[in-house]
């Protein structure tokens, strides 16, 4: 599935943030740009709008690379959030309120061990999603393309809670650790 592992994407992100590394960016772009575009098209954008929006997402990735924290999110997750917000911007014409950022960030060097634990958890989550019954997996995908309302999400996807339980615990441990 992954031809490159998560640690590789994380190191490319660090190269972009620290060295404005065009080669690293080109590699991230080759992998993620076609996926972001596909995601936007599944969400209802036509090909040219999706291309435009995708380029914007990837340019934002460059400019926000210093804000990426590998102990909090996989690279794919982080790119997903940028793409989702841009999609709301463009398709719903609305700058959505986002939660407050937390008081720590990459200026304290991210803890390698924490980043590795998150990478392993991300692989586990990906595997868990892949092995869901097909019908449920497709409904969950549709929810993320914006095909379902929140009440349909509750009624129809069977909320994949078991799948993310350990991910939630991990995130909570880390939040508590940082706030204390």
């Amino acid at each position, binding site marked *: 599935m992954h031809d490159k592992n998560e640690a590789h994407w994380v190191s490319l992100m660090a190269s972009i943030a620290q060295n404005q590394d065009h080669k690293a960016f080109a590699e991230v772009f080759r992998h993620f740009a076609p996926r972001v575009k596909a995601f936007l098209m599944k969400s209802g954008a036509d090909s040219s709008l999706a291309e435009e929006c995708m380029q914007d997402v990837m340019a934002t990735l460059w400019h926000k690379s210093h804000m990426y924290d590998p102990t909090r999110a996989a690279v794919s997750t982080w790119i997903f959030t940028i793409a989702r917000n841009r999609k709301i911007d463009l398709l719903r014409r609305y700058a959505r309120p986002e939660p*407050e950022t937390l008081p720590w960030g990459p200026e304290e060097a991210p803890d390698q061990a924490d980043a590795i634990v998150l990478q392993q958890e991300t692989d586990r989550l990906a595997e868990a999603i892949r092995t869901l019954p097909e019908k449920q997996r497709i409904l969950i995908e549709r929810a993320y393309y914006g095909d379902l309302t929140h009440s349909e999400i509750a009624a129809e996807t069977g909320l994949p809670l078991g799948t993310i339980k350990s991910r939630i615990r991990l*995130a909570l441990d880390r939040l508590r650790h940082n706030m204390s």
Partner: protein
Amino acid sequence: MNTIRHSIPDDLLMGYAAGALPQAFDLVVATHVSLSDDARARLESFEAIGGTILENMDTAEIEQDSLEQTLARIGAMDPVEKPKRSGGIFPTPLQRIVGGDLDSVTWKGLGMGAKHCVLQSGTEGTVRLLLIPAGQAMPKHSHRGMEMTLVLQGAFRDEDGLYARGDIEVADEDVDHAPVAEAGEDCICLVATDAKLRFNGILPRIAQPFLGI
């Protein structure tokens, strides 16, 4: 960070992660997540599902000079500053809409010392701030659809227990409850409904900062 007793249901968090909530709820969820570790941990996990879906997408064909065009875009874009946290009672997403903290709110009297301020009102619902004097019952109102109430200051109590700063109550239209503000401090809540409130005298006002983001 305070202890949250009443956190947001998973369907709403997943809807927020997917970008599928009505606008009125987005502000309440963003504000709640700013105050609750539990909600943030669950939101980040629902977003991780989005990341997995993105990773597993069948790829779309991109334009041949897509990378070059993107690099040109990068050159034309302003650098992004790390957002700063704003101190005060209102978390940052709410301060952006209000245009400041509690002292920037233009209240309208509702009688009996209760006050409110409509922040957004439109086809995707209504969001407003509500102030109930300490020790008083909330004014009666009815709503169609769902109502979300997030406590920002003080506390209220109803048959489901005590709701303090950061706690959220989600009620559908069948819920007929009688919340009462706790003594000691005025209770200030952020309230959203996905249908228009049946309330008189509301002058809808869409906060300007909202458009300027």
